[in-house]
């Protein structure tokens, strides 16, 4: 029975099927919203599914020079990392199936695993576009990772726990977006940087470097990287909405809050043009990191004086 329950956890909910379908739904919603903002009709609802099946049915070409184990292993690692992160967040508003003290750090580490896999994949394929894309990917990782972590640390500090489920419970009685608006903004923009969405899509700028680190990937590998990114989107949205938007209590609140966040992200994707990589790094370290650090200091002082 226990084994059956584990299989259910891994294959159906929350990892596996539910997560894949949610990821595809959110990817479609994102594309559709951006299309509507650009006065287009946009893709049909099954578009990400058709893309995934088509990529699965395609030939996967391996360049002669790459290390085959890395080339075929990295997409799997990226997808696995993103899916594992879903075990610790209140997906669909239910309590996370696995929870321990400090799982916030584990989740954030698992969420940056796909980016590191993309960087390694770009370095491994040795094509010039891949190498430049990988370098930019990793540079950007160093730029947004610290502010994003600090922005999620604010609610954790206030709640007095580094456990995602406890912060979620605390947030249900405190709308932290009202007391920590700076942290919310930094977390939202950090999520966009993490997902390499348009203002921060220098790592895969198709006008300069073809497709960045994934230039040489085709078929299954490309599909796994793309799916990993969609799943990262779902997990990231869950995390930010659970921390800042009054917690997640059920499917309804999960859908409303995460889709509200997604609409905000789609608006920003449409409004802003692509930053150069040095502008991205400058934005995070000269501005994002400093304001969020000031907020953390303020929280610590407030907690020290008013216990």
């Amino acid at each position, binding site marked *: 029975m226990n084994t059956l329950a584990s299989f259910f956890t891994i294959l159906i909910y929350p990892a596996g099927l539910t997560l894949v379908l949610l990821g595809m739904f959110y990817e479609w919603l994102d594309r559709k919203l951006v299309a509507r903002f650009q006065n287009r009709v946009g893709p049909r609802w099954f578009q990400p599914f*058709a893309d995934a099946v088509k990529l699965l049915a395609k030939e996967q070409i391996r360049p002669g020079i790459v290390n085959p184990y890395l080339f075929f292993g990295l997409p799997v690692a990226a997808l696995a990392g993103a899916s594992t992160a879903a075990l610790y967040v209140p997906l669909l508003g239910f309590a996370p199936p696995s929870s321990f003290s400090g799982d916030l750090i584990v989740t954030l580490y698992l969420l940056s695993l796909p980016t590191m896999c993309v960087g390694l994949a770009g370095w491994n394929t040795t094509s010039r576009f891949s190498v430049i894309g990988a370098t930019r990917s990793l540079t950007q990782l160093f730029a947004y990772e610290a502010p994003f972590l600090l922005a999620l640390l604010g609610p954790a500090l206030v709640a007095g726990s580094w456990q995602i489920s406890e912060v979620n419970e605390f947030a249900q009685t405190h709308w932290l977006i009202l007391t920590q608006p700076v942290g919310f903004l930094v977390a939202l923009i950090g999520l966009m940087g993490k997902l390499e969405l348009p203002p921060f899509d220098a790592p895969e700028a198709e006008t300069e470097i073809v497709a960045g680190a994934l230039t040489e990937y085709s*078929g299954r590998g490309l599909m796994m990287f793309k799916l990993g990114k969609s799943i990262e989107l779902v997990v990231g949205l869950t995390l930010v909405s659970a921390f800042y938007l009054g917690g997640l209590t059920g499917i309804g609140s999960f859908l409303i809050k995460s889709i509200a966040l997604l609409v905000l992200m789609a608006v920003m994707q449409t409004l802003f043009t692509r930053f150069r990589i040095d502008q991205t790094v400058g934005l995070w370290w000269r501005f994002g990191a400093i304001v969020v650090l000031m907020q953390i200091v303020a929280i610590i002082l407030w907690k020290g004086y008013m216990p």
Partner: protein
Amino acid sequence: MTANSPQLWQQVIDKVRTWARLNSIWAVHFNSGSCNGCDIEILATLTPRYDVERLGVKLYGSPRHADVLIVTGPVTRQARERLIRTYEQMPEPKFVVSVGSCSISGGVFDGCYNVGGSVDEVIPVDVYIPGCPPRPEAIIDGIIQLLKDLQGGKPRSAVRPNVAAELPS
């Protein structure tokens, strides 16, 4: 019943695969010596007014990601090798759409000292879209033709590339 089930599975998988191919077409654009007229029309096809993303068509930069190679212009001697290389970099199954009169017959450039000939002399072509340049509607219609061919299970076009030695010198 049991004897038929592998076949049934095969049929179902084939159906799903064909459906996915029909609804998700990623294109890569190659200019093999065109005057840029057709390229501008292709870009116009991708603009919000015509919005081919509603049909699942997206333009990608890398031939490794693409299903359809859109070629414009006559094949010049310099572009010939690059065209073959780009075509060979694409993963199977792959299709070629030749856009514009020049890519079909050489057009006004036919017989020039630097022009090798039409696209189908170099790589196999699935759909021809005539016009100088073809309107975006014509390009979308060409894509629909390709989809219909795929749906009907029509065999790939059997035009084989010539060898380099056969080109006029």
